[in-house]
Structure formats: structure tokens, C-alpha cells
């Protein structure tokens, strides 16, 4: 049996929540003040997830990078793998905010969405 001690991040109350786990089953949750906090604590112990924000390199843009995020949280243990994958990408300008940059990277359910915009540099024709 393991007891996980967490500080709840749902609201500024910052409750100290304890989650008692045996094997893969939650035996008890203590210290929460609301059901959202309780659900959060259980998920944080059994299958923690995070939204990932980073930048991706841009080709032909006025900016060298564009900011992106996963549109839903992904399992914490897959963050590194996702980051390594995104490091190999280069997207073509223009990119506008909200645009899906990658659908389901590495078979994940999430999409990678641009959180900013990058204009394309005007290409000058060569005579």
C-alpha cells in the first residue's frame, strides 16, 4: 500500500490531499474540499496527464518559431517522446492561431495546435 501526498492545484485553497493506493486501486482519498479536487487527485496518482506547450521551428516565416500546445492533456510519461518528435518538425509559414499543425502525433489522441501566428516572408522573385 502506498500513500501519495499531493497539494491540490484546482483552486488557490491548495488542500493537502492524501491518496491511498493498493496495486492499481484507490483505497481512500482524504483532505479534499470539493469533488473536483478529489477527481484530480485520483487521476494525478493513477494516470497523470499534462498539456504540453512548446515551440516548433518555422520555414519561410517572419518569425523563426511558432508556439504550439497539445489540445488535450497527454500521459505524463509520453512527454519526452513527444518533445523529441516535435524537435524534428519544421512547419511552413504562414501559420495562423488555432491551426492544427500535426494530427495525432505518435498515435496520441491529441492534436498539436498553433497558439500564435507567423506570417510568411514575402518572397522576392529573381530575374
Amino acid at each position: 500500500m502506498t500513500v501519495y501526498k499531493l497539494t491540490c492545484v484546482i483552486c488557490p485553497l491548495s488542500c493537502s490531499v492524501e491518496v491511498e493506493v493498493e496495486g492499481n486501486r484507490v483505497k481512500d482519498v482524504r483532505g479534499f474540499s470539493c469533488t473536483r479536487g478529489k477527481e484530480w487527485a485520483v487521476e494525478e496518482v493513477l494516470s497523470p496527464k499534462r498539456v504540453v506547450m512548446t515551440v516548433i521551428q518555422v520555414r519561410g516565416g517572419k518569425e523563426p518559431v511558432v508556439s504550439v500546445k497539445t489540445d488535450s492533456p497527454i500521459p505524463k510519461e509520453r512527454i519526452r517522446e513527444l518533445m523529441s518528435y516535435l524537435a524534428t518538425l519544421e512547419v511552413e509559414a504562414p501559420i495562423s492561431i488555432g491551426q492544427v499543425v500535426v494530427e495525432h502525433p505518435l498515435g496520441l489522441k491529441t492534436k498539436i495546435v498553433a497558439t500564435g501566428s507567423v506570417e510568411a516572408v514575402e518572397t522576392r522573385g529573381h530575374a
Partner: protein
Amino acid sequence: MMYDVVVVGGGPAGLAAASESSKLGLGTLLLDENPRLGGILPQCIHPGFGLHCLGEDLTGPEFAHRLIEEVRRSDVEVKTQAHVTSLAMRSDLVKEVTYASPQGTEAVQAKAVIYAAGARERHRFEVGIAGDRVAGIYTAGEAQAMMDLYGVMPGRRVVIVGSGDVGLIMARRFALEGAEVVGVVEMLPYPGGLARNLMILRDFDIPLYLSHKVTEVRGRGRVERVKVVRVDEELRETGEGFWMECDTLLISAGLVPRVKILRRAGAIIDPATGGPVVNDRLETTLPGVFAAGNSLIINDLVDYAVEQGRTAAKGAGEFVRGNGIPTRRWIRVRREGNVRFVVPHMLGGDRDVWLYTRVSRPVEDALVEVPEIGLRRKVPVLKPSEMLRLRIKAEVEGGRVTLVIK
């Protein structure tokens, strides 16, 4: 050219102030020094923006986009790359704002000014870090701009000074991009950031050194190591300390309101906030000059900066229409107990207002009171790092208001 309102600064507070001012039917000019609007938001690619004021969890660039769209849809005239260099009071009703633009130096006149020029970061010299002057010492915001706007990796092994939200968010940013965060060094005996950001330390196995400070940097061209010394409760250094090997030192030691122009124009500055003294319209001691956002107080949520921008715009509207805020017996908000600052400093007693306050030291089971209006609230935890926001009712008995935190 005479405007009703000139807004100085196109970050969250300034954008909100400009939209609101235009909504009130005021002829509004927004001046911003950067080529693009949004202030610091475009480089804050993490989430946590808009939870209160939009009920959504957005990243900085997304939140900026919303505010900018609102301004674009309004009648606000926008000038970017306009760096305000001075503010002069021509009379109580006319102000002159001088700014440097790519075309040269220009000046405009306004009946009211909303000053929302943001803050700057404390740097290594201000926090007393001695040693070598080498590459690899950056403020958190500078490193953030390098990574998220300019696409440059500042270093491989990072030590971060300060465990506030900015420091923690940058710890995650570095760790995500494959750098090693050697440690976060915090002078105080408790961490500065919000609980949700403290989780970053656990997520990435980053050591936190409480009651420690970085005193010295050594290196030839780049940072090679920094000296870390334990401090006692009075923040005095104890013992010889130890060296941490790193190539980058990030300074996240707090923000300072950028009020040089306000101070030079004659506004009274509150040493407790570093920002101007204001009344409940957020009007400074210069009639018709209002302040909002991080120039007023260092906020920990963008939502508050937006709220202050709107409050200031309403004040500016009242000033423009009434040719001044009607004189009244202003009620000074007094502080008692564990209160580091409270803003606004003066209340008119004619409207409900938000008070923004911080405690000096962390306290559990705190009692927050404003006895004159019968406000009495229990708060489980109050920390200096988390601003407390209180609604104060208009009717104030006996012309006194005291904020007491125990």
C-alpha cells in the same frame, strides 16, 4: 492632435484599457513600444491566462490575440514602435505625451492618460550577485524571449534564482527542451510559486534549495559555476557555501514597475508597491493620469491587469466627461498587521471597489478584516506570492477604512 485618452503600453492592461475607453465613446490612442502588441504575453507560451476573466485556460499568445482582436474591432487608434519618453502636465485637463517613433520624436495631447507600461525584471546586479561578467546570465524573461520568440537555446545546464511562478515556468521550459535544470535557489524558507507550478519541480525532478542564495558567478566566456550559500531567517549568509556547475544562470528575482516617466512627471510613488499612489479610479496623484497593470502593482494573474485596465478606463471616462474627478474627502486605506501593501490607496466612498493586497509573510488560518464595513473573512492560507483581492462596499462608516490581516 488632442485625444480624450492616450493609453501608454499595449500589454494586457493597456489593451483592455483601450478597448474599454473606446467602448465608453472616448477618442483613444494606444501607444506601444514594440513592433507587435501584447506586451510580454506573446513569449508566455504556457497556459494559465484568462481563468478568471474569460473562464478559459489560454496560453499567453492566445490571450493576447483575444485582447488585440477586441482593440482591432474598436475605434482605437494604434501606434506601435512608439516608445514614450515623457509625460508633461500642460494643465490639469491637458497632458502632453512625447514618444520616439521610427519617424522621429512626436508628441500628442490628451485629456486623460492611462499609464500601463508594465514592469521590468530585476537583474543580477540589483540582487547583488558578484563575480564575473560572462555570457549565460539572463533574466527569466530574456531567456523566454530567446527561446520562444527568437528560437535560441540559451544553455545546457541551468541554475534558476527564485522559485516564483516565472522561475518555475522557465524551469519547465528548459527541462522540456532537453536542458538540465540543476536547481532552483530560493532565498526565503518557503517556495514562491502557485501550487500548480510547484508541481513542475516534481514532474521534472528538479531540486529546490530553500533558504539559499546565489552570491557569485564564475567563468571565462560563459558561466562555468555559481556559488550557493545558505541564509538564516534574517537572510544573512551562513557558512562557506558550495559551487554548482552550470553554463546558464537565470534570474527570476521579481519585477519592478516601470514608472520612471510617471515619477519624472511628478507622480508620488508608493515604496511598498513600487508603483504610483492611486485612488479607487486608479488615478495617480497627477490629475487625469491613471495607472493599470504591472506599472501599478506587480500582479500574479493577467486577469487582474485586465481588470485594472478597465477600471482605469472608466475613471478616465469620468475624468473626461466631468472635466476632472469631482473633489471629495478621500478616505485613506490604512494597513494593520500582516499587510505589505494595499491598492488603491484612497477611496471615494461612492462605489464598490476591488482592493488588491499582499501579506508580508505567509500565514495559516488568516483573518482578513475591514472593521469599518463589517468585512470579516477567514482564509486558510495567505502567502506573499499570492495577491488577495477583496470587494469593498461603497458605504464606509466614519470616513475610515482599515485593512487588517492577522
